[in-house]
């Protein structure tokens, strides 16, 4: 039923889908690691950055400014939302971490309302229009450069996947091998304790917002490149999967998240390539997750919090 050409084609497709998951799961895990936030609506925050970069590109036609806008807006969102999360999590002992999940849902709602009312009349945005991409760069990157039968690979797919892997490696290094990363983790575990040890909370906090902001901005830019469009419900569509992958891999486990994200992408691609009719593909993906979680309740690679 599955011949080798189709299998390769679907693995390529799966890696492409998986690389989106990688970026989102990594951002989600990073927020868990540096700020102890269960940012359920993290994909919606990313959609906000995609929209900001679209607005800027639509006005200026400049790709560089678009990427800059994505990063800047992601940092800005962090700066605005972090005090809220921090305020809530100040009483670490008595306030449950899932309260951050509810706050995150509220933020997601606000962003969805904004995108569905204020931008482009609420209609989805495209990155392939003349105004947004006057030089046709995005279009060229999205075109396939390798095509053999049903196998098709574009620069944007390769770029997203490679950047995703590099980002995970870089973050791993920052978090576990640098002074700043050590401070991030200490603050995440116990802000008061970190303060007593003499870690400057404000400065370190700002550093961590910038780090997560850069990651979020790059994620937004790459997703825009890979998908070529965005819509107000894009974030909601990805929310469950991102949370699911993070749980399956082990919450806060960067390397595990990378592996599981890519694997889930491939599994989904193969499943979607097999089914004829009926809306079963998501069910299959989640039933698979169910089986894994029953066998490994703390995630395949273990919780790293």
């Amino acid at each position, binding site marked *: 039923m599955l011949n080798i050409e189709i299998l390769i084609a679907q693995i390529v497709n799966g890696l492409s889908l998986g690389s989106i998951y990688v970026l989102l799961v990594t951002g989600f895990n990073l927020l868990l690691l540096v700020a102890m936030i269960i940012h359920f609506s993290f994909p919606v925050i990313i959609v906000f950055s995609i929209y900001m970069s679209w607005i800027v590109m639509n006005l200026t036609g400049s790709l560089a400014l678009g990427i800059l806008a994505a990063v800047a807006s992601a940092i800005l969102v962090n700066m605005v939302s972090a005090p809220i999360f921090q305020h809530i999590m100040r009483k670490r002992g008595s306030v449950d971490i899932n309260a951050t999940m509810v706050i995150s849902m509220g933020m997601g709602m606000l962003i969805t309302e904004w995108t569905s009312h204020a931008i482009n009349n609420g209609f*989805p945005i495209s990155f392939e229009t003349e105004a947004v991409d006057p030089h046709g760069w995005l279009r060229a990157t999205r075109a396939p450069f390798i095509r053999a039968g049903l196998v098709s690979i574009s620069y944007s797919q390769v770029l997203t996947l490679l950047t995703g892997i590099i980002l995970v490696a870089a973050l791993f290094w920052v978090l576990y091998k640098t002074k700043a990363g050590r401070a991030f983790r200490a603050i995440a575990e116990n802000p008061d304790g970190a303060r007593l040890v003499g870690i400057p909370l404000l400065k370190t906090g700002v550093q961590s917002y910038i780090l997560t902001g850069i990651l979020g901005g790059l994620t937004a830019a790459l997703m825009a490149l890979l998908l070529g469009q965005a819509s107000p419900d894009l974030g909601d569509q990805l929310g469950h999967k991102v949370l699911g992958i993070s749980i399956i891999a082990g919450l806060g486990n960067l390397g595990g998240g990378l592996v599981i994200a890519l694997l889930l992408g491939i599994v989904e691609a193969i499943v979607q390539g097999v089914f004829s009719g009926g809306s079963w593909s998501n069910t299959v993906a989640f039933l698979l997750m169910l089986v894994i979680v029953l066998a490994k309740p703390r995630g395949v690679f273990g919780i790293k919090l």
Partner: protein
Amino acid sequence: MNKNKKLILICVMLLVVSLSGWSRPSAETGVEEWQIPFLNILTGPIASIGGYLQWGAERAAEEINAAGGIAGKPVRIVSIDTGMEPAGGITEMSKLLDSALVVMGPVPEPVILAAVPLAAEEGLYSFTATTSYEYVADFYPWAISWFPPTTERLAPIISGWLNHIGASRVVQFVENYGVWAGMAKAHEQGVADAGATLLRQVDVSTDAVTFGPLAVNALQQNPDAIIFACNPQKIPSIINELKSRGWTRMSNLLIFSSGDAPELYSVGGSNINGAMIYNYVDPGLSSPRWDAFRAAYKAAYNGSEPPSLSPNYYDAVYMIKSAIEGAGITGDPSRLAAERILLRDYCNEIQNFEGIQFTWSNNHGYPKNKPLYLFEIQNGAKIKVLEIIPE
């Protein structure tokens, strides 16, 4: 302690306010002003659709008021948001049960399924002008459909298209949501009627964001024609994936009428040039009313074409006007129940109603003579290729 007290006080106040909210009558149809409640979707990710439906209804009301109102009294559209929430839908609908002459909407299918049965039982007539016939047929005579039974028109247009392009091996992308599965079924009928084979139904999951796997699934069947019955914003992405795997025959791609939405064009741009699409509305039609509507929409929406659903509630307001005037409805609250039935029977069997696109006649609550067109897409515009005009 103090903070807590204050908080409790605020909560209690909110509770009191939220409970007392219904003591005031909402949307009462008086003789001074015709108030038409419109249960619409104004929040959430698809609020944009509710936005242009609302725009159409408001435009009709403005025109009517400028021309002297309904039976000499002004008309006002009361906008109500139901979101996608059935519980909210029935509660909003129940606010109208004792007072409204008629209700426009609801718009999203989850709300229709919950609220229209309630309205039907309580004898309140719903103008469900955006959904399929099948969704409201069960509630006849208390709900009107803007569309004829799905297979009645869709099957012929599909076979017409297949004959036009001379294709015989078909694959269909289906998203199992709302009415789309039913429409896909009607397409199946059309494929069979044309003597072609439906090789595969490719399932488009609601939360899919990349479409390579689906394109491969479709293309491995080696089809020569493809039908899309899924979310309009996903269609351009699927077409992109097909093209990047060597698909060139654009006219052998057919997009269903629910795909004829702004999302398709805002995302698709010139990438979908040459693809076919069918719908009940012909934007190229030239009549003074349509031209004015089209120009006004373009002015309000930065130059984009009016979406195919945008005139539906515009027509609905006019139909309510002609029912009130034609059936001699007074709006007197004491005659509410009788006048609701008058309005219902008038609309269900309305004859030669001058819609903005065509003049139609209803039978059993749906239009008998609604034409259906097949277009080719070129840079956001639609060029008519085929049309089916019933007797």
